[in-house]
């Protein structure tokens, strides 16, 4: 199968003015020609197959949005080649735009004051969607989500969740080959998040649309992505399946503990305090073991460790000797922890 998106040794540089500090510096800047060059994206290559949902991950400022902007044709790469749907995006922006859908940031791309259905109809005209295709699509939408009740509502009056939902539907409306979603679930509550994820999954399944997804929420990744690409400081760190990534950490285990009878009563701060105390304790007992880390999950204290370094039972029995444990769970390493380890450059 031929890839739908190809990036070959893509780099992007920006010229940035060196700002000086303080009041005197402000005057200097008025006439300064002192620029420095920042490499936002450095020699990135990847191939994405039709129908894939690919998670594009990285910490803030890693170069994610710059890459997406290049793939959507908004930015021209400084060097390298990009092909989307067989086209060079920035060479023919309108043609490329016809075949992609974008949800970028939290700002709605729909007409602020217009009822949703009117926005959809305008998009139908703009993308020259056949009446039949449009109808079919709307029927599909109606079967997937309760969108009908939103039709008459102007976007400005919608909640964030409703707006995100509408924006995603709008991005798929003209049945594009690729849809770019930039942090689609940010700021949403748990149930809305899962609703959005189900929707994306269903649309990807029904229409075989390729989806490029940037997110900081590993729940999105777990629910949607088979494949992830990780980038940091403009450099690609990883490109493969999540399972493959996890296998690096095959000997890692997460020990989930509860030290209180009714965990739902516990405040976040109290939980953090428990975790911090445990961390200090474990560090004192096993000073040479580097892989142990303690964090706070939802109502749990999580201890992550590498069994090649230290047997889990040994740690557990130590904890049991010093504390009263009310509940225990054993889990594999979470995606969150895996990604964090990659960001922290703990593996090569």
């Amino acid at each position, binding site marked *: 199968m031929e890839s739908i998106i190809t990036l070959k040794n893509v780099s992007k540089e*920006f010229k940035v003015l060196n700002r000086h500090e303080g009041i005197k510096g402000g005057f200097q800047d008025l006439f300064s020609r002192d620029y420095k060059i920042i490499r936002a994206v450095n020699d990135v290559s990847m191939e994405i197959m039709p129908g894939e949902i690919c998670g594009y991950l990285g910490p*803030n*400022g890693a170069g994610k*949005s*710059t890459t997406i*902007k290049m793939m*959507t*044709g*908004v*930015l021209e790469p400084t060097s390298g080649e990009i092909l989307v749907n067989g086209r060079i995006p920035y060479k023919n*922006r*309108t*043609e490329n*735009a*016809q*075949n*992609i859908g*974008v949800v*970028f*940031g939290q*700002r709605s*791309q729909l*007409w602020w*004051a*217009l*009822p949703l259905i*009117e926005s959809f*109809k*305008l998009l139908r*005209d*703009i*993308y*020259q969607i056949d009446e039949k295709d449009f109808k079919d699509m709307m029927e599909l939408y109606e079967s997937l989500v309760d969108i009908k009740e939103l039709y008459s509502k*102007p976007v400005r009056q919608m909640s964030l969740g409703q707006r995100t939902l509408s924006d995603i539907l709008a991005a798929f409306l003209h049945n594009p*080959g690729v849809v770019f979603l930039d942090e689609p679930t940010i700021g949403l509550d748990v149930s809305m998040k899962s609703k959005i994820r189900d929707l994306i999954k269903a649309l990807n399944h029904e229409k075989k649309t390729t989806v490029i997804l940037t997110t900081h929420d590993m729940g999105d990744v777990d629910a949607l992505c088979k494949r992830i690409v990780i980038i940091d400081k403009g450099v690609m760190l990883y490109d493969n399946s999540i399972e493959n990534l996890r296998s690096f950490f095959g000997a890692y285990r997460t020990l989930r503990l509860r030290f209180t009878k009714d965990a739902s009563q516990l405040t976040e701060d109290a939980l953090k305090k428990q975790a911090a105390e445990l961390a200090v304790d474990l560090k004192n007992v096993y000073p040479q073991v580097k892989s142990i880390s303690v964090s706070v999950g939802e109502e749990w204290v999580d201890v992550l460790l590498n069994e090649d370094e230290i047997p889990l039972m040994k740690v557990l029995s130590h904890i049991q000797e010093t504390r009263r444990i009310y509940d225990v769970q054993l889990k594999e390493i979470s995606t969150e922890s895996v990604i964090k380890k990659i960001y922290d450059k703990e593996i090569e």
Partner: protein
Amino acid sequence: MNKELKKRGLRFYASIYFKIIAQDFKSKMSYRADFIISMLGMILTNISGFVTFYIMFQNFETINGWNYYEMLFLYGFSLIALTPMQCLFDNNWNLRYAVYDGSFIKYCFRPINIFFYFISEVFDVKGLGQLLMGSLTLGYAWHNLGLQMTVGKAFLLVAALLTGSLFMIAIMNLAAATCFWLVNSGFVMVTMFKFTEYARYPVTIFQGIFRGLFTFVIPIAFVAYYPSYIFLRPGLPVLTCLSPLFGIFFFWVSYRVWMLGASRYSGTGN
């Protein structure tokens, strides 16, 4: 997937534009208080302009050989010429906010002309108040100057007003487009908008290079003075004849600059 698309020509854009305006108008009407306050603001602006004008003529009888009614003619003419810019191109005022906070990027994702997409988003109803004030003023001056109204003259008047509008729009397009290069371009817009207020005075009050400046660099002379010259004075200056062509050219230049800025724009991602 690769179906044949119709070419997105004038007809396509016109149809989309009217659909947006019709919908926008409907939704504007549902915010009545907002609408009324905007209208009041518009009317008050015009009243204050008129009071300024009146106060000046209280103290002085002619300005540069132009009498009260002639000046009123120019005043009304410039108000009408301002209307299309006010009504149709008002979103230019929001351009710098969209550029600075990065939301401008959304205009780059659709398969239509970016300038069109951006400008079509807002239709400013309150500009119609200006049209009304301008028409009344122009009619009053026309009547008091004892001018005749014929079909030919009516045609000329419309052409002259359109010419003035093109210049007005082009000036503000350019002013708005500066935000792609400058950090606080709000000042450019405000200043340029202020300049267009002086379009209501005959350009002959300026001397030397400044007349050239306001004719060819910041062409406010073409907003009212040159187009309306045929109605007020005998003879036909070359610049009056050429003004429609200049208008179209200048508008085109402003459009190119605007688009150049938009293509330079990369979204302030971080």
